[in-house]
């Protein structure tokens, strides 16, 4: 058991090392969501007056952007798995006496950690957005971010396990991620969306992730009834769905990885 944890730690450590060495990626990953939030958010704000909505547009928009950017980060971090396969490093890991499921778990946790770092940095701008926030809420938000990014990282690993080329990755991530992002309620409230869209969104794990983020982040500045308007699921359901999704996708990504070795 101790050995397995060590393997997991080493694989995780490698992912983190590579993440920090890649300074360009590190900065763009933080720059982009802030840009979207400030420019896009401010622009949209002028379209809706506060009185008509009962809440500030940024309060609606911020959790969505946060959820999406940590998801993008988690998924794009799994690119190292394709990288390793294409440049052969996977063989070096596979020939070592390590448990294969630990390799996968280490990878997923590595990608999750990069997403958590990004999430924490984005949360730093919250005081400037007029959203009430404190340390306790910060920890709770980080827990939700962990649930979301773990699931997205595992999903990423699941899809990239069999890819052999880097260029396939950007296509995969767009095909899988773009619909998930648009149907997650991050850009518009699903409560007013047509029923077919809501039906699809209900099968989207990201919908639950972003709802959970809204519940937690806004709990300091909005009343429960107000949050209810912009979310479509209660917090408890969201957390349960995310947990189940994470377990299932972990199982499948370990399976597909083991199958793809030979």
């Amino acid at each position, binding site marked *: 058991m101790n*050995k397995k944890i*060590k*393997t997991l730690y*080493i694989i995780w*450590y*490698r992912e983190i*090392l*590579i993440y920090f*060495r*890649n300074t360009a990626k590190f900065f763009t990953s933080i720059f982009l969501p802030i840009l979207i939030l400030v420019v896009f958010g401010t622009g949209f704000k002028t379209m809706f007056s506060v009185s008509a909505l009962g809440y500030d547009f940024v309060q609606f928009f911020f959790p969505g952007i946060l959820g999406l950017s940590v998801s993008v980060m988690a998924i794009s971090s799994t690119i190292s798995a394709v990288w390793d396969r294409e*440049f*052969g*490093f996977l*063989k*070096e*890991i*596979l*020939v*070592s*006496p*390590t448990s294969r499921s630990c390799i996968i778990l280490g990878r997923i946790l590595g990608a999750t950690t990069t997403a958590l770092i990004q999430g924490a940095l984005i949360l730093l701008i919250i005081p400037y957005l007029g959203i009430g926030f404190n340390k306790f809420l910060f920890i709770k938000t980080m827990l939700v971010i962990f649930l979301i990014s773990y699931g997205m990282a595992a999903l990423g690993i699941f899809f990239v396990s*069999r*890819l*052999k*080329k880097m*260029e*396939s990755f*950007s*296509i*995969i991530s767009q*095909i899988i991620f773009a619909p998930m992002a648009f149907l997650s309620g991050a850009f518009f409230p699903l409560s007013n969306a047509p029923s077919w869209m809501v039906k699809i969104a209900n099968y989207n794990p990201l919908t639950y992730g972003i709802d959970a983020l809204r519940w937690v982040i806004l709990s300091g500045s909005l009343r429960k009834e107000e949050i209810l308007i912009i979310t479509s699921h209660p917090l408890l359901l969201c957390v349960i769905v995310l947990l189940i999704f994470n377990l299932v996708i972990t199982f499948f990504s370990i399976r597909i990885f083991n199958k*793809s070795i*030979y």
Partner: protein
Amino acid sequence: MSSLSEKAEQIEENKNNISEVIQVENLKKRYKNVNALDGVSFSVEKGEVFGLLGPNGAGKTTIINILCTLSQLSSGQAYVNGYNINNQSAAVRRSIGLVFQETILDNHLTAEENLYLHAMLYGVSLKEYNQRKRELLKFCELWDKRKMKVETFSGGMRRRLELVRALIHWPQILFLDEPTIGLDPQTRKKIWDYIFTLRKKKNVTIFLTTQYLSEAENCDRIAILDHGTIVAVDSPENLKKMIGEDIIFFRTEDNQLAEKEFQKKFAKYPIKLIGKELRVKVDNGDKFLPVLVKAISPRIISMELRRPTLEDVFLEITGRKIRENNKKIEEETEEKFDLSSLFSIFSPFKKNNE
């Protein structure tokens, strides 16, 4: 109880004392319709440098991949360090070190970080790691460069670092897949020096593949692999003896007269006039040379003693030169879920080769 544990210990000991660290029996590997390996059998003794010689696509890498548990065999039996590669793969992986044909290092990390990650994956304790790191890096003359990123390293330095990495967990057997491919002659010689010193120092068994005949000569024993079967296994000397005699080429001012004189005096050796040179096949070339000089009356212009090389051995056994064959057995596994081919038609991305 005690007798039982004693027995277990004895078995363990036997495993450590086995003289044959690699045993391969009738190994077969099929890729789709191609027999990549067609019944390969050989064994490698503890402490020897065993070379697998063959042209591209003969199945050298396939054998290494199977022995290192990276690829599954279709049929046959193989034991590495006394462990069955089919059902004791973890034990096999613990006892081997491997340097791949292509250079595989984490380029954005430093030499030291590359070693650290590897050592930790193999469960080397931190104390042992630090000690071995120092010893091996100094030995391979990389100690001063340990804090540098690998992307700044030259080809030879990378290879040396890979050698260090493969050894940092003290493997019983070191697998080297074409260890000197793509390196300049000087670096190549250096790598070989390291390999031989290592063998002496650590008593590690070395299993390597090569397509350079001059390098195969360095091995204790070589197996010649051709079309997925082993056509000969022996020491380089014995293999060369198999072909037989040394060859002497010489030129004189009067070749006809020299030929006649030779036939009269040394009837048992065949002589033949080839172009402007006379060719003689003899048993013991170096001792025969002075005899020949004295025995022939026309003035000798030039003289050359040629020993059979491994190239001649290869030519004799397979009927062709090693470089002639470049037919590759494609090791392609079936195309799995890869959308890139599907979307390549309308993908705006150009493939960029780094």
